[in-house]
């Protein structure tokens, strides 16, 4: 009888774990509507909130790929930083067009991501260590190339007006510059990235291999999956996405700060974990990460609108991460039951 009840409880919790992200989202929305109603729901507010988080959301997608293979990527914040610096310098010193800047930034990110992957797959260093080192190396390079001075992206010509390139660059995310006058570019970019990577993970062989490597690397290798290639690929993609987020962040602040992106990796990992990705690998979805990012950004917004102090915001965000992880672990419940019985 107890066993039966336990099993039922376990199944309920497990189902709850799968749906937790959605439940969390509904809860945050409910609190927002209950406390701030129309102000919270207004299109401007929601767009602003999600826009401010979009670059971290894009990082979260890349981090999710890595987490799915059982690794972790701590370097994405620094990669975003150096990509945003690259973008600002390309714009200010070489007057490149935005369509030239983005691929360059993505290549820069992909390059460092590749090094992360190579370190993990070839040198067999734990990804935690490789990417921790990369976090430091890339931040140092970022500060070195910029001489520690922020670089503005609102470049003016001799006439005091923005140069055409700088004007176009603003579309990437300077607040108030929307596509078709309505859609805030970073929000669109975040959604497109989510859709593309959701399709890659669910519809392609590469996607199945990513899950296979995370689920059981040995089994994957025995069934013919090239584990090394998959590992290098996910880190490279994660770096590439961080490179893509760089120009967005530079446009958002109208400058590249040598400190840009610091601690963004933590938000990105939190979004993935809240969305149900398991750090043990093999479990998680892009949809989940998307919802996880929404929860974090809306929570930030709701707490901000209610003038909750930053200190408590940190406490609350941390607790939510813990709750999200616990909900994914129905075994914890039986562990405690077992403990009380003996």
């Amino acid at each position, binding site marked *: 009888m107890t066993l039966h009840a336990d099993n039922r409880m376990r199944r309920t919790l497990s189902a709850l774990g799968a749906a937790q992200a959605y439940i969390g989202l509904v809860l945050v929305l409910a609190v927002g509507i209950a406390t701030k109603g129309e102000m919270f729901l207004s299109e401007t507010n929601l767009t602003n*909130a999600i826009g401010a988080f979009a670059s971290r959301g894009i990082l979260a997608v890349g981090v999710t790929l890595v987490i799915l293979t059982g690794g972790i990527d701590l370097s994405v914040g620094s990669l975003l930083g150096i990509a945003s610096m690259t973008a600002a310098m390309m714009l*200010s010193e070489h007057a490149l067009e935005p369509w030239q800047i983005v691929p360059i930034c993505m290549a820069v990110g992909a390059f460092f991501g590749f090094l992360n992957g190579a370190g993990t797959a070839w040198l067999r260093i734990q990804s935690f260590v490789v990417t921790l080192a990369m976090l430091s190396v890339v931040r140092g390079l970022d500060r070195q190339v910029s001489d520690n*001075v922020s670089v503005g992206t609102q470049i003016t010509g001799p006439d005091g007006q923005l140069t055409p390139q700088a004007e176009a660059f603003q579309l990437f995310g300077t607040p108030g510059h929307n596509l078709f006058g309505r859609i805030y570019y970073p929000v669109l970019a975040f959604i497109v990235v989510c859709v593309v990577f959701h399709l890659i993970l669910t519809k392609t062989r590469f996607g199945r291999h990513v899950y296979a490597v995370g689920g059981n690397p040995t089994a994957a290798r025995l069934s013919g999956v090239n584990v090394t290639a998959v590992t290098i690929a996910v880190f490279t993609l994660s770096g590439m996405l961080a490179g893509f987020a760089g120009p967005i962040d530079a446009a958002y602040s109208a400058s590249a700060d*040598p400190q840009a992106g610091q601690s963004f990796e933590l938000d990105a990992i939190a979004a993935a974990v809240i969305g149900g990705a398991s750090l043990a690998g093999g479990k998680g979805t892009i949809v989940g990460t998307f919802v996880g990012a929404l929860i974090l950004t809306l929570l930030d917004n709701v707490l901000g609108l209610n003038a909750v102090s*930053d200190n408590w915001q940190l406490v609350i965000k941390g607790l939510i991460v813990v709750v999200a992880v616990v909900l994914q672990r129905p075994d914890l419940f039986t562990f405690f039951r077992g403990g009380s019985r003996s």
Partner: protein
Amino acid sequence: MKRTIAIALCALLAAACASKAPTPTASADGGKKKFVVGYSQSNNAEPYRAQLNLQLQHFLERYPDIELLPIADAKQSSATQVSQVQNFITQKVDALIVSPTEPAPLTAAVQQACDAKIPVIILDRTVNTDCYTAFIGGDNVLIGRKAGEEAVKLLPDGGNIVELRGILSNQPQIDRDKGFREAIAANPKIKIIADREAKWVKEQATPIMQQWLAQHPKIDLVYGHNDPMALGAYLAAKAAGKAEQIKFIGIDGLAIPDGGIRAVQLGQLSATFIYPTGAQEAADTVNKILHGQPVDKQQVLGTTQVTKDNAADLYKQFDLSGQN
């Protein structure tokens, strides 16, 4: 086994980095004595401090017998900074400049330097001991007060102010807030309706301002504890079409392309206040100390208000790009 080797390699690397500091004191160029100066900077990543470093290097070049060791960056960590100061003491530098990250943790280290008879110049932030040779720094309470007086001038009929603060534990933040609040008390119709920590950066200030714009129907003035935060708020207000109705005040007034002086010139900020780096004074003071001349123990630097009228001149005066 492999792991042991890896750990050993890491340790070796760390040791190599730590011992890389150049040779101390009397160098051998022509037998002439060269003074060696160590500088521990609290955080190179802040543009203001990067500018300070640049200026200090620039002004010390005037004194060919003084050699500045590579600037040690404490990266905002007091623990790192304490060990840097101790390293400099071990190297027996002829003089030491420290910009403390926090007063309390650095006090003992500065005391150690003093006990080792090394003259110490405290730059920008204080320590809790009198055992140093000179303090050089701006007066953040004064600058906050000036900013507050400007706010009172900009809002003769009273109004609502929002305040973007630096990192809450930083002394400049505390002082810039204190002075400002004292000054705006002159007009009871002026109210600070919201204040939040934006950690000195634009990226954080923009979303906070967006939330404030949603919450408060009437914001008349934004007071940013530094220019990047004030400009982040400006970006948010501009996007919401409200930049014209709101005044923006910042602090720092750096002469860099996206710094505060340019922003005043462009009309984005109503005013900013130069927080002097003290680099020139530090260079002069070091030189005097090393040559046995007397120096003032307390050198508190004033501030200059940047307005549309003087912005171009001030930019020229402080711009060091291309000079190094």
